[in-house]
Each structure stands twice: as C-alpha cells, then as structure tokens.
C-alpha cells in the first residue's frame, strides 16, 4: 500500500486553480475525460463506459461499485483509474477475517503513550477488492467513511482526506462464503457498473499486451492531482440543470416507487445521486448543462442497485434493471407535450 504521489501532467491546472470565483474560466470537461481515458487506456483495453462512470463518481463526490464476473479486469480498471488520478491510493482485499480496525486503524503504545496508526481508509482512493467477502461488520465500518467522510476510532472522530473515493469490486456469481452488501450500504454507492466482456479486437489487444514483460500499470501517467480534482468537483456542481430536466429526473426516480415490481423504490438520496452524477456526466461530455439523455444514461447505474424487487415478482423473473428500463420507457422525456408547448 504505497501512496501514489504525483502532480497532474496533462490538464490545464492553472485555469482550474482559478475556478473558485464566479467568473471562473471554463474548463473543458472533454479535455479532462480525454486525458483520463488516454491514461487509463495504457493499461486497460476497452471499458470506456465503465471508466466514464468511475470518473463521474469521482467528480460527483460519490463512490463506485464495480460488479462483474471474474477475469474481466475490474481490479485492473480500478487500479489504473486510481493511478491516473495521481492521488494517494490504498487497497484492501476483502476477506472474512478482515476486521473494522484493519480498515480504520488502531492505537499502539509507543513509549507509554498511545499513538494512532491510521488504517488504509485514510487515503484519497480506497480500492476494496471483493468487498462482499468482508464480513457485514467490516462492511458497516466503511459506511461512515463513505457517507460522512470521517472515521470514528476509539471515541475520536477523524476526518478523511479530500477527495475521498471508494472503489469496490465484487463478483456477482460467487455466493459461497460471501456476504451480500446490505441495502443501506448499496445505497451509498453512487454508481454500480459492469465492465463487460471485451469485443474480439479488444481481446486480441489484451492478449498481445500481456506478451510484454512490462507491468501495464507502469505505463499509466498521472493526469490529476488532489487540488485539481477538488476544483473539478466545484466546477461540476455549477453545471446547469434546467427545470424541465430536473422535473424529468424526479419523475424517473418517483416512478420507481410506483412500479408494480418494486417493494422499495429509489430513495431521495437516489435523486441527489442522479442529480450530481448527471452534472458530472454532462461535464465530462464538455457541456455546461444537463440533457435528458444524461439522466437516461445514468439511470441504470445509479438507480439499479437501489431498488428492491418484490419477492413474488422476483420469482417471476423481474429484475431491477428491467424496472429501470420500463420506467425510462414510460416517463415522458422533455420537452413534454411539445405540440401544445409553443
């Protein structure tokens, strides 16, 4: 667990540094995305959609859960992303005997006095591999860190460094010896994403890449640093969401609560998550405003893991993803009733 120190290499950080004022010079989100994707592409073939969602989570001040079958490159993607961010990174391997103090840290007696040794959670990018292999108690220990950006150890609350993003991976098909993430914790992940299998061409490139002796991650340049990332977040918060789009967003979230297949719909926290994620998504596309398309693109990764399917419907094959699809197909997108509008 070595900190990855470094400064941003490819971004116009000077312009970002001035972004605190209202008249901040515009930052081209596309340049951010382009630099990030090029950097990660040095190690990862394909997975562009997943990477964009990771970047969205970072810029929207959220966390990401990468869920896919083994061997698909989840961990590699997360590591390459973390490295490209140029932020302090730590990695935890989820195991049943991993204890909360293994994450948060504990005090040691040194020279008769207790000295707090911070755990891996005190980092900018925390990569938790196979999170569902950790016990519920350990998983719960991450809750406070994810939501409050602080850790309470031995009665003392310690803030986490900014920015802080948790990237967790889990394998959805292996169930033995795993502990499903509780709904409360799932809700704290801004996005849940899949990497997906590469296409034939990408798979050939992957095989070729591993013929070389060099570690692919070594070639990933650092394109961001902490202050830049925070400045970008600040910029993302000011991406415009019009009334029409806002109304569409809330309609989509609310429609999940009325869906017949759902026992528990998306919470207001989901609305906030979708709002912020869509701002980040628009920013990465180089826009200063959110389009309904952004909401549609993000509805699946942002809402999918927050829905609880009715057991009876589940027995009949209903899935959260299908519910999101059906909600998107039912909720009218703006401009609503365009013919009467003008």
């Amino acid at each position: 667990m070595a900190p990855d120190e470094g400064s941003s290499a490819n971004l116009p950080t000077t312009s970002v540094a001035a972004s605190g004022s209202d008249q901040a010079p515009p930052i081209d989100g596309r340049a951010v995305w382009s630099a990030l994707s090029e950097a990660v592409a040095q190690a990862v073939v394909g997975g562009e959609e997943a990477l964009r969602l990771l970047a969205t989570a970072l810029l929207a001040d959220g966390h990401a859960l990468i869920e896919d079958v083994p061997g698909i490159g989840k961990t590699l993607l997360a590591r390459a992303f973390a490295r490209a961010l140029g932020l302090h990174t730590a990695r935890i391997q989820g195991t049943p005997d991993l204890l909360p103090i293994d994450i948060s840290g504990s005090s040691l007696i040194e020279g008769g006095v207790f000295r707090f040794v911070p755990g891996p959670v005190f980092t900018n990018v925390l990569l938790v591999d196979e999170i569902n292999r950790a016990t519920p108690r350990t998983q719960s220990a991450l809750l406070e860190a994810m939501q409050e950006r602080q850790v309470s150890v031995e009665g003392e609350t310690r803030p986490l460094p900014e920015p802080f993003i948790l990237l967790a991976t889990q394998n959805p098909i292996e169930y033995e010896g795993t502990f499903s993430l509780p709904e409360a914790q799932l809700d704290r992940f801004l996005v849940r994403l899949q990497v997906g299998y590469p296409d034939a061409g990408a798979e050939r490139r992957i095989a070729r890449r591993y013929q070389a002796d060099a570690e692919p991650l070594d070639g990933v340049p650092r394109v961001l640093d902490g202050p830049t990332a925070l400045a970008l977040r600040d910029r993302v918060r000011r991406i415009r969401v019009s009334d029409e789009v806002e109304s569409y967003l809330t309609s989509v979230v609310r429609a999940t609560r009325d869906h017949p297949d759902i026992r528990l719909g998306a919470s207001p926290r989901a609305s906030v998550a979708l709002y912020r994620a869509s701002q980040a998504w628009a920013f990465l596309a180089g826009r200063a405003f959110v389009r309904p398309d952004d909401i549609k693109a993000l509805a699946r990764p942002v809402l999918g893991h927050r829905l609880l399917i009715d057991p009876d419907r589940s027995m009949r094959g209903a899935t959260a993803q299908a519910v999101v699809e059906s909600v998107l197909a039912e909720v009218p997108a703006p401009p609503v009733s365009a013919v009467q509008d003008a």
Partner: protein
Amino acid sequence: MSEVALGIFLVVIASFLGVPAIILLGLVLVATGAVQEVWGRRGLDGIEYRRHLPSPHGIVGDEIAIDISVWNRKALPLAWLKADDEAAAGVVVRERDLVRAESGESVLRNAWTLAPYERVVRHFHVLAERRGVYRIGPAQLAVGDLLARPAATGASPGIDVWTVRPRSVAVRAVVSDQRWGGELKARRGLLDDPTRYAGIRPYQPGDPLRGIHWRATARLGHPVSKRFDPARQREVVVALDIETGIGPAGADRYDDELVESLCVAAASLVRQLRAEGATVGLAAAAHSEGTRTMAYVAPGGSEGQLGRCLDLLARLSSFPSAPFERLLAMLVRSVSPATSLVVLSARDPSPYLPALRGIERSGYPVWHLGFGPAAPALIARARAAAIASSPAQLDGPWRTATALLVGP
C-alpha cells in the same frame, strides 16, 4: 407437369388445332403458374417472424405473456402466411388450441393475411399449469401466392424457453421453537464465526497463523490470537426425497399429485428460510438437467438464491434418479460443517434412517419432515430412531393450497 408447362403445351396444341379457347386456358395456366413461381421465389423474402417472451419465468397458475409478431418487409402482398410453432409437451395457450402438424409435432398454428410492409403483433398467454421448463419454436413458415395456393416454405429457427416454478405458500410452524435457519443446537462441530469477533486470547500451539492478531501481538509483546464467538447462523439444506413409494429408485412410476405437493412444500420451505435470512440450499436425488443424477443448489444467501432453488424444483424429474441415501452421503461431503439438514419426505424413512443418524452424529443437525397423508406413521418411525421429526402438510390440494402446516 408444372402449370406453366401444361399451359405451354395447351397453347401449342391449340395453336395447331386453331382453338382460341384452349389457347386462352393455356395462357391462363401460364399466368397462374408464373404467379406461383414469383411468390414461390419471393414470398418469404423480407419476412420477419419473432416471438417475444417478456419474462422467462412464471409460477404455476400464472399466465405468461408471449407476443408473436410477423412483418412482411416487401411490396408483395401475401394472401396468407402460416407459422407452425413447435410446442413442447405441456404447453397450453389460452387463446388457441394447439394442433397436430403433418410431422406429428404439436404446434401453435397462426396464419395472417399480410399487405405490403404490414406488421401484425398477436398477444398470446401461455398457461403455466405445471412446473417445468417449456419451449416453443422453431417455427415452420409457409406462404400462399396471389391465388392463395401454397407457394413457399421456410423455417424460423429461434426457440423461446420459459421456466414454470412451483408455487410457494406461507409456512405456518406449529412448533414452539424455531428449528430451522441455523437455530438447531449441534451436538458438536461448532465453528468460529469470523463475523463475530470477540476479542483476543493468548496464542496456543496449533492456532493458525492467519488467526494471530499481529497488531495486538506487537502491542502486548507476546503472541495473541483472535477470538470469535461460535457460529450462530448456519447453512440449511433442504433435502427433498422425491420418491413417493411406488416402485424402486430409478423407476419412472410415481404419485404425481404427491410429487407436486412435495415440490410446493419444498419451495415454501426454501422461501421461508430465505425470508428469515438463512443461507439455504436445496438437494434432491432426481434428474434436473443433462445426465446428472443429483440435483443440487449449494447453500447461498444472495438475492438470486431463491430463484435458483425454485428453478431446480421446476426442472426436477418426478421420479428419483438414485437412492436417497446416496444423496445424503453426497451432501455430507459437500456442505460446510454444522449445516442444518431439513429432510422432506413422503415415504417410509426406514431405508435412510441409519444414514440420517450417521449424519447427525457427524455434527449436522437433522430435522425430518414427514409429508403427506401417512405423515404420522412416518414421523413415528423417525422419532423412534431418535431423529427430530415433525409432520408437514399443505392445507389443500397443491394447486390451491395457501399454507404449509408444520406440526409439532
């Protein structure tokens, strides 16, 4: 002789004989033959035939929607297009009776008259009358020409499959203590639960290195190991004895009603256990897919576990594939120590009681549920062998029952 050839022959003959009327008939035959040729070559061009099954799962008693759409993507109108969808045995379509095709297969027959570029969607409902895995397709297509005569045939190879899962009903336990879900006391074989950290204790020779608490060891200056509370939550496997007492194992004679009732009871138990948060699995000595003789879903606590167990029950053959004792022996080798075993059986337990006793002695809590009309006799035999046993009974026929009553 083809129509065109016959027509040409008539034209030639009539030309020699000087009979315009026969020439007229010959020309008509040539024209109708040509029409048949055109529709024969082009009739199936641009035909898009699709079935759409919104959900591939259903419960016994459901109606599963299935849409059949056909699209004539060309400028040629079709007097008719007929599609025979091969249907597996047991498929019942609410709106239409299946017919016997020339090949002897049972088919869902549809026919449409199609204008150019016309798309027609028909909405059918398949009745899920019995558990099982059903399929429909491939479809044999035939089109008629302008004169509605058969002109061309083809095939649409797609197959749609759906699973009809057994019903599950509420479980009403009349027993005073909650016996499943890992609450049974094991005589031995208790394991530490790594999720229940209880502190540290001095290191003892034989402790695994993985169990050493290195930080505390460093702090205290002597080796200490992590201490955990014993496991309270255990895995539960429902072992379904599919044999209904008619014929030996492997014989395909069975009491159909009793088998279906057993499946409903097993589904209800699994559902109840999942609802209580137990890590549950299902096993049966029956065919489920391929040539495997044991049907088994390993214990799991994930969201999809109930579905996997129900799918297994849906696929389960109605007759045993191997003696139940062999399944019990396999389970002992497969499951984690201290896993609770719930045996659901509707026949005399005497043949497998020794196996159950052995399993229990090995540290696996066993609970026998005597099912069916002979339940009192069954549980008496099990109890006589010191196996915890209770009667279990549906409160009605398996199609309409609303509860599984588990007695004391």
